[in-house]
């Protein structure tokens, strides 16, 4: 029966994440963006929210009941309200951990999952995006060829979060090039493996506080066991779709903050004798921003709900992610426009959201629900 009401557990998650975002993340957002550094303390506090370990069952040393897309998108929205870079940094382990939890072999689970259930934040990276203008997850150019009891990986990646800081990188490569999504597999590659070279930290327009790296693979050899799901491999489209839900949820949270900021500014800023929000041009912009933020959230919720229900949700996740990317740019652009000259100044947060927003069209992987 249709309902839009959060469960008590979800309300709890929402409140905890929301106050953490407001008390710790947002106040540090600007400095983190300018310095490119996220204060240790915020991450360790954020880790205490237990979002990762909270999904991992006890048998793997976690304290949760497994993956729950809806709970996670609710959490992600709140965290991105606080700061996108910090949220993506804090949740960098999700792609590897959740992929293993969802589709890893028992051995992979036992070896890897406990690492992400500790007291301490444990980064993990993933390498999906490639440095081509027309990169497409269905046409990945990095290849993993089987050679005896090894896979040999060749290719180039970019936007791999925390690659240098991590022990492992989940690398997506084509085992059957030309087969589209079905031809892609994921490999757990330890940092330092011969043939895998992590380049200099990337400089991006936005998410400046998030450390991302390019990675090149030259005849990088990994054992068969490194393949997610072992012999059977894994369902890449499903993993991709889970990451799209995560990215869309982040876009909703960040955009919601931009909307709220614009709303408050339009209410308080006086020009020509009245608050600028009392003029239809500004007021209608804000109304449309509000409508699109809510619309995107509902698209995300519905796709996540389908995911949790075990229904096919790949199409819904793609629609939601693409819709979210457009929405975020529209909202980010208007949040600057509404502040006029003040929006162009780095004293104010909107230009940061404007830069971050454009990233969602390009981001794939990087975080997962």
């Amino acid at each position, binding site marked *: 029966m*249709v309902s839009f009401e959060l469960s008590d557990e979800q309300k709890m998650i929402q409140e905890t994440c929301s106050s953490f975002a407001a008390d710790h993340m947002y106040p540090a957002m600007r400095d983190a963006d300018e310095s490119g550094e996220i204060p240790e303390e915020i991450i360790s506090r954020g880790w205490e929210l237990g979002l990762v370990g909270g999904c991992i069952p006890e048998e793997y040393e976690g304290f949760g009941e497994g993956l729950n897309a809806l709970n996670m998108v609710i959490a992600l929205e709140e965290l991105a309200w606080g700061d996108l870079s910090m949220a993506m940094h804090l949740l960098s382990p999700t792609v590897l951990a959740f992929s293993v939890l969802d589709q890893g072999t028992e051995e992979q689970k036992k070896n890897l999952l406990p690492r992400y259930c500790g007291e301490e934040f444990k980064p993990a990276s993933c390498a999906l995006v490639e440095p081509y203008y027309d990169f497409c997850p269905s046409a990945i150019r990095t290849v993993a060829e089987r050679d005896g009891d090894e896979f040999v990986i060749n290719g180039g990646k970019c936007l791999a979060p925390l690659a240098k800081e991590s022990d492992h990188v989940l690398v997506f490569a084509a085992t059957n090039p030309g087969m589209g999504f079905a031809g892609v597999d994921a490999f757990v590659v330890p940092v330092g493996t011969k043939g895998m070279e992590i380049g200099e930290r990337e400089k991006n327009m936005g998410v400046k506080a998030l450390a991302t790296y390019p990675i090149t693979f030259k005849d990088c050899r990994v054992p068969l066991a490194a393949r997610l799901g072992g012999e059977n491999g894994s369902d890449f489209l499903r993993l991709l779709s889970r990451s799209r839900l995560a990215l869309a949820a982040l876009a909703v949270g960040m955009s919601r903050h931009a909307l709220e900021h614009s709303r408050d500014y339009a209410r308080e800023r006086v020009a020509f004798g009245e608050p600028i*929000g009392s003029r239809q041009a500004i007021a*209608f912009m804000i109304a*449309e921003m509000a409508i699109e933020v*809510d619309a995107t959230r*509902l698209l995300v919720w519905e796709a996540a709900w389908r995911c949790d229900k075990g229904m096919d949700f790949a199409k819904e996740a793609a*629609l939601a992610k*693409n819709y979210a990317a457009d929405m975020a740019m529209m909202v980010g652009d208007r949040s600057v426009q509404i502040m006029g000259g003040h929006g162009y100044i780095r004293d104010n947060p909107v230009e940061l959201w404007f830069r971050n927003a454009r990233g969602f069209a390009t981001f794939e992987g990087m975080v997962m629900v």
Partner: protein
Amino acid sequence: MIDFELSPRIKATKNMIHMFAEQAVRPIARYYDEHEHEKPWDLFKMVHKFMGGGMAGAFGTSGKEEKAEKEGEPKEKKPRETNLAGAVTIEEIFWGDAGIALSFPGPGLGGAAVQASGTPEQKERFLSRFSGDEPVWGAMAITEPEAGSDTANIKTTAVLDGDEWVLNGEKIFVTSGKSALEDSKGFVVVWATVDRKAGRAGIKPFVVEHGTPGMQITKIEDKLGIRCSDTVSISFMDCRIPKDNILGSPEVVDKTKTEGFKKAMATFDATRPLVAAMAIGVGRAALDFIKETLKEKGVEIRYGINPNRMTVLEREIMQMEADLKAARLLTWRAVWMLDNGLRNDLQASMAKAKAGMAVTRITQKAVELMGPLGYSREYLLEKWMRDSKINDIFEGTGQIQLLVTARRILGFTREQLK
């Protein structure tokens, strides 16, 4: 607990209505577009017989459902689905055809007004007829030539003379006015002022029965679309109605409290998401047409690839689907709130604004994408583009919806944000 699964009851209705829309409505859609002002009487009788004005979920509830409702409190705990059911049903029926669906018999907005502000006696007197053997229509008359969206500026007057109210004025854009007053033993709810100086506070709804002397249909409009539904102008010249045909109290309360008006607005809060559902039905029809055309040609849509690597056609379809789904979810949220006794005026306006704009865009784009097939009256696509435009206009234009949305979000009054 967040859930997007329709209850078995609603699912069943949905399927039934869809079959009906596909088999009984869609096939005659073009005929009633080409033959404006003709009416599908056989269909009306069937609708009336089998749905007992159930479709009227669109505009308030039928006599039957009305009774059912009396039992439960308005804000009862156990979840109700009346409005969700209405939204789902309407999407299906409007998928069949908007013009015909709008012309269906039932209490309509007039009935909804009686429902919202009538006494039990009035409800019995005015609504019971909808459970009779013959199709009957109820209508609502608010707009005036000089008013438009500006409903507070109503000039039609109602003066108490002994036991009767005497109405004078002119109304336009009365949906199903002819059906209610000439084609059936129906009524029209007329909004008139009992005190011009009192502004909104002076505006009251009055029920005027078919065939009341002094009331005359002066014009039947020729329209861009939804041609099966009649839109009329009505003039009132010393039109006398019984004293107790006023809905709600005749008192002009202080000018800030505008009780009569609030009721009208309450009616709109309930119907706005349903108008959104109408739009969504038409938009879905257009999208289905494109997808079937492509299917026949063996063209598949590659969801999930990089949108910039898609063809224009693929990306447009993806955006149409997302827009349509977004509009539907916003609409479901608005009716769900209503079913659960939550204030939904903001969400109702958001849903209607989104649906109206999304669907006019979708149908216009669809006609473009289908080229000569889109522009030709051999297919229904061009009709859907014409029909859907009304959704961005009636029951408050898209601009009015944005205005209401903005006021609520900014916390501004009507005076602070004009």
